[in-house]
């Protein structure tokens, strides 16, 4: 009764204005607060906090280049640079604002394979240390390099996945029980990959600047990928009426798995590319064979849901590329534009995608009658984890 007369004046105001009004007030309050010089607040308690994180180190003949980002709340001035306890003239540095970055280039006669420790001396005398464990020339990004990284991505991503998918005719002949075991195997495998990506993502996030979120980026990446894939999944289900009737089409499931594995392989490519760029990776036959064995099982995982269907070869090739080709992209990105914050986020995406696929696959692993895990499923899950663990020992990138 009372609300009626009161809402009368507002009823003429358009809805958008009502929505915008609080924002306008907020802006006005902030302007007033700044205008009055933050009344009642002291400038700061204690000395300015200087935090710099080294984002990327590039070695060229006779030159060490380092990109640092200001991670802290206050501006930092880089005044001097030392390499192995020797001050060197350099270019770059100076004042770096909050979240800003600077590329510092130091002419230095570094020797391949030797270790270097650099420290940046700030205007307050604080030091930021960066180490190079074993100096190696950073590859320049040219056609030859991109070709090499592409080839590497194909070796460790595309070919093994494609080989794994050749298990499809075999799967068509085996019984439903074994298929369910193989799906469980896939879930175990994916769970291991997810855990692996989580640990690696957190490690990378910890090494880089924290200003953009650090470990939180992994979690945010996971949430974004999970929700994005859930959205895609919902659309696919809505479109394919038949799929909905049958509780999800096999192709749909295979696509989701391939996407999850693809995002994982993107992370794998990033790791390979950045290790190679840093000179920390020996490109041997052993590494390639190790990755091939590791990733062949991923191909099996993709085709496991397709045992009862007859997809066109083109679609199978598409699935293979979806799962394997991101390794190429990752290798390019990792070697040429390595950025710990971005890499942490991408690792997070891989985790989210895998979680989404596991959620999708989980129902088909359960015993259809009893609706719980039976011996076959448990054996499959454990086998998946075990195979990933064992083949993972073959590679360390």
């Amino acid at each position, binding site marked *: 009764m009372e609300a009626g007369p009161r809402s009368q004046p507002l009823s003429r105001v358009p809805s958008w204005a009502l929505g915008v009004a609080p924002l306008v007030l907020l802006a006005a309050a902030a302007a007033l607060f700044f205008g009055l010089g933050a009344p009642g607040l002291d400038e700061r308690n204690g000395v300015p906090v200087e935090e710099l994180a080294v984002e990327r180190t590039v070695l060229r003949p006779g030159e060490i280049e380092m990109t640092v980002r200001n991670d802290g709340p206050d501006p930092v001035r880089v005044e001097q*640079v030392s390499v192995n306890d020797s001050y060197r003239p350099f270019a770059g540095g100076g004042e770096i604002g909050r979240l800003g970055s600077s590329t510092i280039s130091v002419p230095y006669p570094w020797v391949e394979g030797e270790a270097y420790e650099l420290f940046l001396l700030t205007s307050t005398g604080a030091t930021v240390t960066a180490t190079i464990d074993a100096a190696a020339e950073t590859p320049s990004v040219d056609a030859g390099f991109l070709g090499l990284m592409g080839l590497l991505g194909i070796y460790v991503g595309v070919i093994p996945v494609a080989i794994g998918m050749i298990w499809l005719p075999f799967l068509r002949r085996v019984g439903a029980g074994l298929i369910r075991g193989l799906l469980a195997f896939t879930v175990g495998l994916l769970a291991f990959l997810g855990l692996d990506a989580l640990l690696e993502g957190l490690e990378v996030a910890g090494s880089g600047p924290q200003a953009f979120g650090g470990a939180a980026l992994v979690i945010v990446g996971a949430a974004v990928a999970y929700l994005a894939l859930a959205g895609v999944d919902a659309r696919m289900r809505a479109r394919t009426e038949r799929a909905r009737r049958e509780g999800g089409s096999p192709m749909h499931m295979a696509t989701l798995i391939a996407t999850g594995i693809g995002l994982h392989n993107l992370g794998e490519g990033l790791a390979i590319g950045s290790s190679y760029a840093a000179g920390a990776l020996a490109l041997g036959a052993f590494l390639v064979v190790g990755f091939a064995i590791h990733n062949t099982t991923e191909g099996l995982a993709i085709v496991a849901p397709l045992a009862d269907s007859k997809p066109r070869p083109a679609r199978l090739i598409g699935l293979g590329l979806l799962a394997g080709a991101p390794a190429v992209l990752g290798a390019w990105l990792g070697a040429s534009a390595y950025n710990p914050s971005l890499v942490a986020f991408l690792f997070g995406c891989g985790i989210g995608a895998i979680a989404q696929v596991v959620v999708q696959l989980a129902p088909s692993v359960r015993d259809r009658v009893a609706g719980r895990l039976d011996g076959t499923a448990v054996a499959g899950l454990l086998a998946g984890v075990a195979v990933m663990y064992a083949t993972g020992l073959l590679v360390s990138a």
Partner: protein
Amino acid sequence: VEASNRAAPKRGRLSRRRLLAGGAIAGASLPLLHELIPHEGLHGGGSATAEAAGGHGSHGGPAGHGPLHADFRDGADVDHVANGFDPSEILRDFDEGRTTRLPSGRILREWDIVASDKEIEVAPGVKYAAWTYNGRVPGPTLRCREGERLRIRLVNGSDHPHTLHFHGVHSAFMDGMPGIGENRGGGQIEPGGSFVYEFDAEPFGVHLYHCHVAPLAAHIAKGLYGLFVIDPAGGREEADELAMVMNAFDTNFDFANEVYAVNSVGFHYQRHPIQIRRDELVRIYLANLTEYDPVNSFHVHGNFFHHYPTGTSPEPIEFTDIVVQGQAQRGMLEMRFAKPGLYMFHAHVTEFAELGWSGFFEVS
């Protein structure tokens, strides 16, 4: 032991092939460049190693690319006006105080010294919150003659307690030791307090003074030290005299030094060579006030010097081109340069050299 452990990771090599950065070379003419060649030859070992590192394969900077020895960044220098002292001036700045004659006929020499907290620039752009005597690091070089009566008035204008502790012969109450002599107005001098130290100038030689308040290493490392030179009663031979205090700064408070120098500003004499006249006797009063590292050293290129440890004997003990000093050790070095040119001098604890403790004599 800890100090040596800390020093251990510091390593480096010296390449002396570059002359000077920027304007510092302005005074050097082409003949001087020629003079540099034989002096390089004397130290081929060091240079050759550095060159080998850079020269083989595709790595490293061949001559003409990049710097030829350690230095701070180009174009920037320390603001000596803001610092309140210039190492080029400190070098020949001997503070002889005020003198009066006592009824006995002896000379009474007096100084006023104020301890204060002051931010100083120890490398271009890099500030250090120092504690100073008379606003400079090192403190004034106090100069007197054997047998004089000395009175040194310390006024503590710092926010922290300090003392003046002289290396010399004096009574316990005049020792600048906290806990000794407080009942007579001495001992630890609190902020705002003052005290007059009084004793005879003995023995002659090169000595030093520093603060002795705990924590001791911190009070010394922050800059509270200086040279204390007592001339022998008969005086010494006329010479171009230079006061050099080897010191260092732990700018990030990790009990290891980041910047090394003579008279506080890293690479100062490398960028502003010390002007020396040919054939003139050069006498250096050298002391090591480096904290956190057990030893420091002085090495000169292309020349040898007579070494008088602590300056207490009229005869040198050694004719050499290097002298190694532990903490608070000091001595007198005498040499003449026969040929013009740029002669480097630096710590032959070479990592110190490349972290700021390098300079040049420019002989003309």
